[in-house]
């Protein structure tokens, strides 16, 4: 077969965003050897784009906050489909994980008395997001990267993993190729942590970077692991909508946290028109109270713009559908209005939201300190993913762990802003530690040469078809268009049935894709190899969304627009069945233990 190079680690971490870096650091601290695979260069991962902050109940700005309130907020936001054990651990451990970052030198904005400053965000009762201006993700990645640099972690940059290796039921490594030379690399390992992020590139309009092709989801699925909650895709309410080239680029929720308001074409602040029952008691009565909340008045309740993302996104879609949208199919997000309230509002906006200021200035020629932005929903985050044990982050396959966005459970049906950065710190650490323990007891094993041979042959097949095959980009673009149209923010049975037929056709086209050129750094080839992953996650999303005949969190059905209690008792689970067919099941959610039920009750 084609030659390959072999490397061996106790723990192999696939993905070098926040979760992967944190897992690698944790595993290395346990004294085992660690390999870290990045699809791009180290430090460029999607986490770098996170703007708002990391949610942690430190109580630095409002001392009424506690892990219990954070837990209750997370469960409410997730519509109680969350893995409650994960929500509990996350709320309890996030403050220590943020302080640990600080101890490793991370920069944070500070309170006047020098503590870590925390800001308001949607669905969080108290100001909870530790942040650095609007570049928190960049600082987090850099701190983890810097800290990991001198820990002896072996970094494999610009390497893509094609398949996981198995020995019986257990995962014992991975097989992939380096992009620079296009040569195969075998990773033998005692345990593997998947930290590959999300799936946003299955959609046309997305805030996600090109790497987000559902690799970890698909790798785990083919290795026999269960996926869960795949119907729950988060459409962030505020992406840029104009000009077309930047459609989908994120406009941070921090704009609304600083007092930004959503306005329709009639000049109406429409978010006041529809406030869900379970948030009514926490939402401001009028604009004045909402403004006071954003300025730190502890007696005020939050403005409706800071309701959960699923709800805000749907309200925007409603305004646009009913003809009250902005010229380019969005609504207006206005932060400039705060000039009525603050003496030096322009400077204040530039200081609090510098990246947003520059983004609009450079790409849309909009000065956000004096004009409103046009915004609309953009595919942002995957709540669903690899089903894991809440304490250890091990998947349903021994030796295979998952953390961060590619794992499921913490966020349930909808993620709160700020909970992803804390997620990847808390569960990255746990996954790395568990994987290290597992690897100490389970060594890498013999390699099935036939499986490698098959994987290599399959990977190189597009070269054999050459110019006779269709280009990979055409198939990818058609998939993105179709998922956007048929399995997007508003879903219907007939459309999703059509999507399943479309996916079958796209699978056939993907199997006939051809690439030209050489194996050295060939992006057409890389895209051809991303396609099967995108198709696998798209099918999982569509099948799960068809099965959930209700509307809940990020999943909205036009044909079943209400929440249905019958669907509140289980998670949708996807597995690879006999003959390679995708099988769907429902796993009952274990009841909340009394101590957690009490917390939920106390925070109603």
């Amino acid at each position, binding site marked *: 077969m084609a030659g390959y190079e072999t490397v061996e680690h106790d723990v192999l971490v696939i993905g070098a965003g926040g979760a992967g870096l944190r897992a690698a650091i944790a595993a290395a601290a346990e004294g085992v050897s660690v390999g870290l695979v990045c699809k*791009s260069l180290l430090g460029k991962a999607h986490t770098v784009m996170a703007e708002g902050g990391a949610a942690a109940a430190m109580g630095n700005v409002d001392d009424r906050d506690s892990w219990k309130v954070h837990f209750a907020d997370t469960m409410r936001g997730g519509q109680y489909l969350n893995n409650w054990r994960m929500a509990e651990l996350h709320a309890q451990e996030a403050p220590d994980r943020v302080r640990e970052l600080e*101890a490793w030198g991370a920069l944070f904005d500070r309170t006047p008395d*020098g503590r870590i400053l925390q800001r308001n965000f949607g669905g969080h009762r108290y100001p909870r997001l530790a942040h650095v201006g609007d570049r928190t993700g960049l600082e987090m990645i850099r701190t983890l990267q810097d800290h990991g640099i001198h820990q002896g972690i072996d970094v494999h940059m610009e390497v893509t993993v094609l398949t996981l290796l198995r020995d019986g039921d257990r995962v014992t490594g991975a097989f992939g190729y380096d992009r620079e030379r296009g040569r195969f690399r075998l990773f033998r390992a005692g345990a593997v942590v998947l930290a590959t992020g999300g799936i946003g590139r299955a959609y046309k309009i997305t805030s996600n*970077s090109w790497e987000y092709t559902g690799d970890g989801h698909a790798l785990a699925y083919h290795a026999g692991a269960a996926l869960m909650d795949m119907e729950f895709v988060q459409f962030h309410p505020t992406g840029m909508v104009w*000009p077309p080239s930047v459609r989908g*680029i994120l406009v941070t929720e921090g704009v609304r946290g600083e007092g930004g308001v959503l306005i329709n074409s009639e000049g109406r602040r429409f978010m006041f028109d529809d406030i869900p029952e379970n948030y009514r008691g926490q939402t401001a009565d009028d604009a004045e109270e909402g403004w006071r909340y954003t300025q730190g008045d502890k007696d005020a309740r939050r403005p409706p713009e800071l309701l959960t993302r699923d709800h805000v996104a749907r309200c925007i879609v409603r305004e646009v559908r009913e003809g009250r949208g902005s010229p380019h199919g969005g609504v207006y997000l206005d932060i400039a209005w705060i000039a009525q309230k603050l003496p030096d509002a322009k400077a204040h906006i530039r200081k609090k939201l510098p990246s947003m200021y520059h*983004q609009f200035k450079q*790409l849309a020629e909009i000065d956000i300190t004096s004009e409103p932005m046009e915004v609309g929903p953009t595919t942002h985050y995957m709540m669903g993913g690899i089903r894991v044990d809440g304490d250890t982050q091990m998947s349903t396959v021994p030796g295979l762990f998952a953390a961060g966005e590619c794992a499921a459970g913490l966020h349930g049906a909808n993620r709160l802003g700020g909970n992803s950065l804390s997620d990847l710190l808390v569960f990255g650490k746990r996954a790395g530690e568990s994987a290290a323990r597992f690897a100490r007891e389970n060594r890498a094993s013999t390699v099935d040469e036939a499986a490698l041979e098959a994987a290599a042959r399959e990977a190189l097949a597009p070269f054999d078809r050459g110019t006779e095959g269709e280009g990979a980009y055409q198939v990818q673009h058609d998939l993105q268009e179709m998922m956007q149209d048929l399995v997007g923010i508003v879903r219907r049975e007939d459309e999703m049935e059509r999507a399943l037929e479309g996916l079958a056709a796209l699978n056939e086209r993907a199997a006939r894709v051809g690439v030209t050129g050489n194996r050295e750094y060939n992006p057409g080839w890389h895209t051809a190899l991303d396609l099967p992953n995108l198709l696998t996650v798209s099918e999982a999303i569509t099948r799960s969304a068809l099965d959930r005949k209700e509307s809940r969190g990020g999943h909205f059905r036009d044909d079943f627009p209400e929440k249905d209690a019958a669907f509140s008792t289980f998670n949708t689970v996807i597995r690879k069945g006999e003959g390679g067919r995708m099988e769907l099941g429902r796993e009952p959610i274990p009841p909340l233990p009394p101590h957690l039920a009490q917390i939920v009750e106390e925070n109603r």
Partner: protein
Amino acid sequence: MSMVTLRIQRFNPEADAAPVYREYTVEVDPTDRVLDTLNAVKWYQDGTLTYRRSCAHGVCGSDAMRINGVNRLACKVLMRDVGAQVTVEPLMGFRVIKDLVVDMEPFFAQFRSVLPFFINDARPPERERLQSVEDRERFDDTTKCILCAACTTSCPSFWANEDFVGPAAIVNAHRFIFDTRDAAAAERLEILNDREGVWRCRTIFNCTEACPREIKITKAIGEVKKAILYGTARA
């Protein structure tokens, strides 16, 4: 929509002995970015065209390249600002792997040489260390770096001598040297006092002009020089 000609420096290590320029005609909107135009070439004309890009938001720093001779991020430059004839070339000073992709390892090695990680062996307090708003502000600017290499590869001192540690590494040292919580400023200053360190900087300001994050790099380098001369970063 209008037609533009993109003149791209291509290099295929399997086939070319030296880089060659190829021209592509692409239909663009004035508000398209250079990155969109490169994508259009790759998607519809030549799937082997190679360049790095990740976030496409100007935050990851993957797509720095020479656009009409100036180091820019392709995801932050609009087509209407570059004219109908655009030349795109890889960053200068590093080995070209393929097309617009250069070998970044020497750049990362420079970065690693300045101890770019927080050093303080004292036990951290139970909660976070305190840091005043003013002390935090002191090194805010240099924490914005995205390691895109636009500064280092625009520096004539680096072109003349590739052993020069380069502006990006100095920027990343600056963020620790001027952080009141860090305890290894002296060590870093000594590293930068080397003959390949800050003194190779001739205050040409190319780096400051090239920085897509608008970091005042030359000023930061000046502060490091001063700290070396006066023996302290805290004065």
